[in-house]
């Protein structure tokens, strides 16, 4: 048997592509390195200090746990509410954004609009809303909604576009109206996908909601920025623990519920 010793890591025909790719990547890397002029000399000193900080954090200060949990609850609520609202809105809009069930112009418009909204990070949207509405959870919800909405429209419309054309044809042929075709022919096959996308986005929203407070949108992020400002690491340690547990908890929950989302299918 010919040994697989000659198996290349990349397929033969794509060899040039990969080589070019790697050279480009290495080039960019080196350039970036030089450009950023990272202060590597301060490295060792910094690591020692980090060690100190982390050990201080591990001596967690639980004293204000009520406040912290309340803030965590607020962040969680923000995430939940934003996910629900954006999913509901995205659900309806996605039918306009999917090319196979909507008109070309409408689809193009919604896809373009949501791509634009998505390109602006959630935190920046939140900043803008805080500037207008002042501090608090409310602008946080709006900021998160905006971005989630755009993301879910893309995800949902992708699922819609994957529905077999035959389904739609068959229902058209029976004389069904457009809403009936959508409800009976398009939604049933994609039900699970829609829920999976929403769950995936929810996980992300929980993480993000914890840092929205850094720009003044309340919740546990605000708590964190307050204690960090005073270099109170032991309190910060507890807060970070809570953030971790929230995120981890959701992850475990979803693993249990076995919501199968192929993350590799993202865009």
């Amino acid at each position, binding site marked *: 048997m010919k040994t697989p010793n000659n198996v290349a890591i990349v397929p033969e025909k794509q060899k040039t592509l990969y080589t070019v790719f790697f050279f480009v990547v290495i080039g960019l890397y080196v350039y970036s390195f030089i450009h950023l002029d990272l202060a590597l000399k301060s490295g060792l000193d910094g690591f020692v200090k980090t060690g100190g900080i982390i050990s201080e954090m591990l001596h967690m200060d639980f004293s204000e746990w009520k406040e912290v949990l309340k803030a965590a609850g607020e962040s969680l609520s923000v995430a939940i509410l934003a996910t629900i609202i954006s999913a509901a809105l995205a659900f309806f809009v996605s039918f306009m954004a999917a090319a196979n069930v909507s008109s070309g112009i409408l689809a193009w418009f919604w896809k373009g609009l949501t791509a634009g909204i998505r390109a602006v990070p959630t935190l920046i949207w939140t900043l803008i809303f805080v500037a207008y509405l002042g501090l608090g959870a409310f602008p946080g919800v709006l900021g998160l909604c905006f971005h989630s909405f755009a993301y879910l429209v893309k995800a949902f419309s992708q699922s819609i576009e994957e529905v077999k054309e035959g*389904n739609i044809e*068959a229902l*058209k042929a*029976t*004389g*069904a109206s457009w809403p*009936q075709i959508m*409800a*009976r022919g398009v939604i049933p096959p994609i039900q699970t996908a829609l829920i999976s996308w929403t769950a995936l986005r929810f996980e992300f929203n929980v993480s993000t909601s914890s840092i929205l407070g850094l720009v003044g949108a309340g919740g546990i992020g605000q708590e964190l920025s307050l204690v960090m400002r005073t270099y109170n690491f032991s309190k910060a340690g507890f807060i970070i623990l809570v953030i971790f547990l929230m995120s981890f908890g959701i992850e475990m929950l979803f693993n249990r519920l076995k919501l199968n989302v192929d993350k590799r299918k993202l865009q």
Partner: protein
Amino acid sequence: MNALLEVKNLHKIYSNGTHALRGVSFEMKEGEFIAIIGLSGSGKSTLLRCLNQLIRQTEGSIIFKGVPVEKANKTDLRRVRREIGMIFQHYNLIDRLTVIQNVLHGRLGYMNDLQGVFDLYSLEDRRKALSILKRVGLEKEVLKRADQLSGGQKQRVGISRALAQNPALILADEPIASLDPVSSGVVMDYLYSICREDGISAIVSLHQVDFALKYATRIIGIRDGLIAYDGKSQDLKDSQLREIYKKDLNESDDRENEATGRKSAIAV
């Protein structure tokens, strides 16, 4: 007696330039069971889909029960479509849903949006769906998911869905192309006998000439987007069949022999 269907000078040119239909004209009376035969790509599928406007023709008119189909507005088109049931080669069932849910989709054309969107089928409709399923021998699979059925069973569900529409006309686009010979026979038997019993007219496109000859009263042969033969099945001559199935000079004659060979076998 007025014709059920009148097709006049139908042309269809696809966006990639293919001239699929080059002036097809024929009339159909109530009660006929027409088989359309021809090579793949000859225009059979295009013709069928123009009839219920799943594809819009480039030129020509189609008049169904006195209504010019291509000029119909949305509401009228729905009304036309609900009277025309369609059966597809790949069944086109909604996999996740149950058999009875799929059959009831045939009633959507008669229901308003709200009822249709929320599955609010009347008891009357449900009873009707059950009796149709009984007729095609699927009463035991009523609550099974559509993707758990065999090919032949799926097509029978497809037939049931079309029947649920109470149609005047059924269009079948290569209904048995994906089935084995035994299931094909079963499906065609059901289709034929039910259409006969209920007085439903049918246009069935097939590439198996033996089936076409067995069931159809009238055969329309299509070649290159034009009608090459239109008449009774017993009048179809060997030479005409060869014309319909003749391929270009450099291609093999297998197809042609197959078609003519079968005919001779049955003609005995």
